[in-house]
């Protein structure tokens, strides 16, 4: 049953309704602005979080690069120089060494997080305006005042939803943070191990040098203990070389796989939300 507007020639009633509506709507709009502010702050924070981790990861990876280069420039040549006279060496650079030549940071590792989609409040269609303003009376939710409030409520609802979307983006940023943390941890460990091994290697080289200076290059005259020293030096060289060969990023590793999977889970949801927002 249509209820025709009660706003007949009672200008005063219309004024009162409009003023009431405007006053309440204004309050709602203030809340809306605050919520939107929070939402956008959160989205920016998410971006910042990832950027920060990316930079930390770069620093850690840089550490590894520098360590590797130092070893390749100093310790390895020294070993080669001394040991080559004992046994022929075939040094084949692995992936982790080859990539040092053309590596540039930052390394594209985990992909970028998307921009947050904007939740737009549904503005009144022409039909809603017509019905709300002209057909329904204030007592049943129509009239200028109520339409203003309704519009403001829709905007507040959209703002609340925007905040939820931004929280979702932030959650994804936290996943990125964990994934980057794994990269950082791995890099730190490799750098530390290389450092320790290099020290041991260097000692072994010195011991080997001393031995050769004493016994000469004819390995046949060496006893088992002395061969043990040579073996240790070679073992050290091999261990260091294996760590040098480890690529900076473990693209096929278990942790990388798990990281990418977790990120993909988040991205799939974010895309779904974005597509829904944009298609409506």
């Amino acid at each position, binding site marked *: 049953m249509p209820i025709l507007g009660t706003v007949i020639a009672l200008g005063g009633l219309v004024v009162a309704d409009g003023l009431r509506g405007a006053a309440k709507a204004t309050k709602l709009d203030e809340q809306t602005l605050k919520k939107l502010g929070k939402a956008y702050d959160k989205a920016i924070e998410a971006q910042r979080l990832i950027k920060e981790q990316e930079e930390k990861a770069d620093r850690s990876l840089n550490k590894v690069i520098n360590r590797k280069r130092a070893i390749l420039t100093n310790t390895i040549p020294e070993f080669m120089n001394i040991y080559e006279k004992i046994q022929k060496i075939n040094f084949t650079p692995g992936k982790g060494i080859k990539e040092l030549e053309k590596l540039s940071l930052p390394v594209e590792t985990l992909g970028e997080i998307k921009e947050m989609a904007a939740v737009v409040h549904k503005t009144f269609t022409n039909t809603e305006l017509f019905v709300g303003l002209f057909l*329904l009376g204030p007592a049943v939710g129509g009239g200028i005042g109520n339409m203003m409030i309704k519009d403001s409520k829709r905007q507040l609802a959209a703002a609340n939803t925007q905040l939820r979307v931004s929280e979702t983006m932030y959650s994804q940023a936290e996943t990125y943070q964990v994934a980057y943390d794994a990269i950082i941890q791995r890099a730190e460990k490799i750098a530390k191990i290389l450092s320790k091994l290099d020290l041991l290697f260097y000692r072994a080289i010195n011991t080997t040098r001393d031995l050769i200076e004493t016994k000469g290059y004819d390995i046949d005259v060496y006893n088992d203990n002395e061969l043990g020293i040579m073996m240790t030096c070679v073992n050290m060289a091999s*261990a260091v070389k294996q760590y040098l060969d480890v690529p900076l990023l473990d693209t096929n590793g278990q942790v990388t796989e798990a990281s990418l999977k977790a990120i993909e889970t988040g991205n799939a949801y974010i895309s779904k939300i974005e597509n829904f927002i944009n298609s409506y």
Partner: protein
Amino acid sequence: MKDDEIEFTYLKSTADGINSQKFYEPYRQMEENLKNLTVTRGADKGGGFAFEIMDAADHSENLLRMGIENKAEWINNNGPGDVIIKHSNGKVEFIQNKLGYRGTSKYQINVEKYPTDTTFRIDKGNEELYNYLQKRIDKLSEKGIKHNMSVEYSEVTKHEVEIYQKLAKNEVKLMDKLSLANNKKAPITSKLYTASKKLNVAHKTGVSAAKGAAALTAGISMGKHFYELIEGNEDIQQAVTAVLKDTAISAGSAYGISTTLSIATELVANTPVAIAISAKLGGTAFVSIGNVVASMSVAMGPAFIMGLAIGSGITACKLIKRYNELDKDAKRYISIINDLTEEAQVCMELARNGLKETIEEYFKEWDKDCNKGFDMIFTSIYNDDVEGIANGLDLVLRPINGKVAFKSVDNYKRQLTKTLEL
């Protein structure tokens, strides 16, 4: 009725730019003065008085914009000035408004009879009168008469006043026709005009039509009757009657009888989209058709609009049903996003926790192997145990799926004649 046939615009009159508020004050006063002005007053049937009132408001607004708080007050008597301004230094400036006075009628103005502090304000663009008055003022100086007289253009044009007058008279005519008391005054027209001036104030202060969260746009296509009226081809009375006849709601005919309709054309300049309902305007809606602005009292709205709607076969019931559907739709949109975000956050947290566990486990094993390996190496170095060193290295290499080269001296010895592959 298709959606795109309905266009309607309204702007919330909230703060509406706090800055605009003080500039509205002269127009509030103007509205009061115009409302109480008898439409047929004066030799030219009220046009001159209307001009005085309108100009006073404009002038006051300009003074305010220049930082001068003194306003131009309309004096409703036959005194030396139509409008006076009391300056803060005690000086009183008299304003004489002159509208039109073209041709021989300008000779009726004798500048000598006015106070020497008189400023003549004339309708905008009235060069003929401007030149005439300036000449007369110059003559005073030539005669040695001390004075501060001057002539200025108002912002108000004759055309604007004429339109206002026409509408005001139409309002009175319509009220008479509908047997409503009016005392020959036109309160609705005064309200409309004031609204249009306020819109201009808002524009000047930088408030655009789209400002504020509540700016919604649409426009209403008025239908044949009103368009013809706006074009000046049909009398208002006939138009109203014709519309009422179209209205299918018999109960709604009460609306038609008890309300009036005002049309204001070309009062709002430069508005690409009309700006409408402000509660302070008593719910008057401006509706646009291209550049022409028409207004109608919202009170009149239901009957008139329903007439159009029903004329096109849409019932109120259908429209209200659709309204409810659209409202649900809007709510559903938000609700779906909320559900998605909730689900997303739960799943993302699960995935993240799973990842953390994997990472923790992985590096735990790494640390275990490496720590044990190095311990073994250092102990073996101390004990001169080369095989112990080899085993230690083996553990250190385990996290990267590596292996020590030689676990025993025998193995090492056996390959000495070959090339060492590193």
